[in-house]
């Protein structure tokens, strides 16, 4: 049992892969390295899939790609409104990154999103996006006024949300992926054969994709709240 505990604790840590000998040593953690792998795969896949796009007579791959991008565009447009064009590629990128990072456990890597620092980075970016766009599209004064909506009484809550929203985004993603990861490690320890494969479908694949959707959906929702005109 002690061995299992030790193994689990080791798995839960965020080991440093290597250190860049600059400015007194910059630590590059394992999750960052796996993130690079995810990025490389995504970029190579994007390059391969978009290599031969045709306006007329698209192939099956292109049609799938187009419907995916159209789905993303439609989703972002429905939630953000007229300024959706600038946000769709960013939200799509975040979705691809988180989605792939969540399910990379299937391929034997530790998901980068089980590192709270990674999800914190994502949440900070979301926060910058939400409040940046709020001021970008409403002006300084209009952006400030948004904090007093729908009624001035909610001003303190809206201000607290500036910190709560990214914290919730960060912790939700981290907690879910970490929980799934711990359960999978335990299952692998208890019953190394067949069992993990079945549960992996839920904990790695399904939960991973759900958390992707939740993260991106909430970010989109918050951005929309910040800039959408009330009808």
């Amino acid at each position, binding site marked *: 049992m002690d061995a299992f505990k030790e193994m689990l604790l080791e798995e839960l*840590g965020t080991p440093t892969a290597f250190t860049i000998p600059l400015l007194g040593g910059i630590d590059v953690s394992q999750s960052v390295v796996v993130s690079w792998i995810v990025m490389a795969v995504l970029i190579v896949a994007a390059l391969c899939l978009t290599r031969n796009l045709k306006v007329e007579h698209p192939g099956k791959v292109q049609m799938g790609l187009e419907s995916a991008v159209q789905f993303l565009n439609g989703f972002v447009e429905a939630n953000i409104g007229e300024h959706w064009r600038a946000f769709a590629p960013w939200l799509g*990128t975040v979705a691809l*990154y988180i989605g792939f990072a969540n399910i990379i456990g299937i391929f034997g890597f530790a998901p980068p999103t089980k590192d709270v*620092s990674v999800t914190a*980075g994502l949440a900070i970016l979301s926060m910058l996006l939400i409040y940046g766009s709020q001021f970008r599209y409403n002006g300084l004064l209009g952006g400030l006024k948004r904090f007093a909506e729908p009624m001035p009484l909610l001003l303190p809550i809206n201000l607290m949300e500036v910190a709560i929203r990214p914290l919730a985004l960060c912790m939700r993603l981290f907690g879910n992926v970490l929980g799934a990861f711990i359960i999978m490690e335990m299952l692998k320890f208890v019953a190394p054969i067949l069992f993990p494969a079945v549960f992996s479908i839920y904990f790695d694949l399904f939960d991973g994709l759900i958390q992707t959707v939740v993260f991106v959906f909430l970010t989109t929702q918050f951005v929309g709240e910040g800039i959408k005109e009330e009808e």
Partner: protein
Amino acid sequence: MLEFHLSTIVFTIINLLVLYAILRKVLFGRVNDILEQRANLVQQEIESAQQGNRQAQELKAEYEGKLTDARQEAAKIVSDAQIRAQRVYEGKVAEAQGEAQRLRQEAQAQIATERETMLQGARKEVASLALLAAAKVAGRSMDADDKSFVDEFLSEVGEQG
């Protein structure tokens, strides 16, 4: 377990920004370009189809007008021809009637002349026979005075006969 590493946070932010810059260009930009081009293409096709339709309608109206004109023209030509034919026919008939009239008059004139000639011949014959008969009766030949006398007599008889 719950330790925040500044370096990892910074790396994650940089990673995401880099990934965004690349995917925006390589994935979303390209696919959206294609979608936009397709939308433009469809728009163009629709517009050109509408234009073609409009042109076809115009041509149709034009041809229909021309066809009506042509029909009227044809009707006019036919009626002209009928009128002319009627006129020619009437002319021919009148000509033929005139001709027939003339022939009949000529024939009547000829008949009359012939009758006159025959009558004169017969009168002469009768006169000479009468003279002959008279000469035989008188036993002498006739001279010119007698002849005129006979003629006078005969013409009197002819007028009565």
